[in-house]
């Protein structure tokens, strides 16, 4: 039986030229974002039990993407933690996106990135959260760069242990090799109609598995 499988595998490998020896690799679970283009780009959403970085400048759709993810996670019954270094979380926008705020624990650190990092560490180690967002989007890049690689490793390790999807929102990437997925956001243009701001068109870029791919979406009012 074993010999037959080995023979079949070698024949298939010779025919399709793909490695077939990784059958024991653990299936990676994903938390979908609810945005089809991003889910296609990332292979199903943000990975659970891993660190994902979403980076980009202001008005590049980072928050729209995160609120869509938050909405999807709470809709699935997950408990979520939003650690907000700058205190920029807008409950009204999150509720508009469809997030169940009762399942969201918001920690408002009012500009203290160190407190945000410690809170994230405490909450992710407590376990039971499906999604933990570390929002450093308004933290100055210089201050965010001071977060040591050891801290990122600690967070990643805790995420692996508890199975939570840990997402850091930043101006630029900081976690380097600790992150399993990096999504770079770029603003394209604001969409105006008459006297109204209708939305923001943005472009997302993922460098997963060293292959750079892009997707576009519009966050509409």
């Amino acid at each position, binding site marked *: 039986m074993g010999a037959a499988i080995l023979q079949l595998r070698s024949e298939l490998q010779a025919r399709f030229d793909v490695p077939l020896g990784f059958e024991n690799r653990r299936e990676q679970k994903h938390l979908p974002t609810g*945005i089809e283009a991003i889910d296609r780009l990332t292979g199903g959403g943000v990975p659970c039990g891993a660190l994902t970085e979403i980076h980009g*400048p*202001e*008005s*590049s*759709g980072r*928050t*729209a993407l995160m*609120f*869509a993810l938050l*909405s999807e996670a*709470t*809709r699935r*019954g997950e*408990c979520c933690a939003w650690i907000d270094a700058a*205190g*920029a*979380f*807008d*409950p*009204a*926008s*999150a*509720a*508009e*996106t*469809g*997030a*169940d*705020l*009762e*399942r969201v*624990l*918001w*920690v*408002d650190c*009012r500009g*203290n990135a160190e*407190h945000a990092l*410690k*809170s994230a560490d*405490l909450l992710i180690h*407590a*376990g*039971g959260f*499906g999604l933990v967002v570390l929002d450093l989007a*308004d933290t100055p890049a210089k201050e965010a760069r001071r977060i040591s690689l050891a801290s990122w490793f600690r967070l990643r390790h805790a995420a692996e242990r508890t199975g939570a999807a840990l997402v850091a929102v930043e101006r630029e990437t900081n976690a380097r090799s600790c992150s399993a997925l990096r999504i770079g956001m770029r*603003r394209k*243009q*604001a969409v*105006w109609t008459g*006297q*109204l*701001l209708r*939305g*923001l068109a943005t472009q997302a870029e993922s460098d997963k598995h060293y292959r750079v791919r892009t997707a576009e*979406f*519009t*966050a*509409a009012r």
Partner: protein
Amino acid sequence: MYACLHAPGNLSLLVECARGFSPLIEENPPDSVVFDARGLEALHGPPAALAREIERRAGVKANIAIAPNPDAALHAARGFAGITVIEEKKEAAALAKLPINLLGGSPEFAESLHLWGIRTFGDFAKLPPLGVAARLGDEGVELQRLARGEGYRRLRPLEDPLEFEAELELEYPVDLLEPLAFVMARLLKEICERLAARALATNEVRLRLTLENSPVHETSLRLPVPMLDQKAFLRMLQLDLSGRPPIAPVVKVHMAAEPVKPRRTQQGLFVPLSPEPEKLELTVARVRHLVGADRVGSPEISNTHRPDAFQMRAFAPGLGSRPGGSVSERAAEAPRLCLRRFRPPRYAQVLVVNQRPVRVMSASVSGRVTVAKGPWRTSGEWWREDVWNRDEWDVALELGEVYRIYRENDSGRWFLEGAYD
């Protein structure tokens, strides 16, 4: 099956002993306690073994009787030394030798029996019931039933007031939190044990510290779910006290817990895991200690048109604290435009040409306005001091960032409210 303990002068010890066996206890002052022993066979074996176990735990020399009804057990314990076990339907024979004075009754009744030459329960039980009724009335009939061991009544259970409090006066004032923690741990242990003995938990722990030459320091822990974790309570109280320490040395510690029924829930097989409430509460207390008490929780949007109006509620997912939940009915299929707020709004200088903003200058954001849409006037709550009245604009700057700015109509000052992202 009922058990009775009888030991002159040791009623409180007997009550404590009986509590270890049953919640249904009847005190019979001055020196007897009867309790419901039904169902204890499964734990302690036959009645004789149960009686030996009661004797072992009593702590004092006591007469112990086990009988099918409370009165028979009470009379046997008062009349026979050591352990007495009375089987069902053999009550009359077992009680026959007891002296008649144990039966009680009025002095006239006792005198009549004495004149008739009745000296024991057995003598009285043998008298014809109709004759007893004719000569001694209802009291005689009732007491004859007791003498035959036929009495049946419900226990009058002893009800303790449900107060879960403990206090300790210190020999010398304590001015450090660490030694105070030992005192609090001791009081918490006492209260938690009392709650556990009654299958209760608590959702509020109150701490009152009497200080030396200063006003009383009070604090309380309000928990979203009933808990009975002594270590978690202690840690939360320590965090609370380290954030808001007493202003003077402590001379007396008083602690109280609000008793409530414990939480009993079962997670569904296919429901995502939630944080363990007890562990979560402790974690949230730690985060609260770090960032401030009013900055951690679950936001609830207030029912008003005031911009950025919300209240921070305790995070208690899935406990139905908000009827109907807070999910927007317009839950989006497509990503929605979101605002990142500046708290507090940032003051800005705005250059206005032809009643439209053309340039924004602030400490963090500056630039030429390429597109400006507005104004949208909002105002409200004129009856309050913090009335709002403003004109809002959505502006795009030259690098492509889009902000919401507004002008306060009363003061004429401009502010950056947030960035669209």
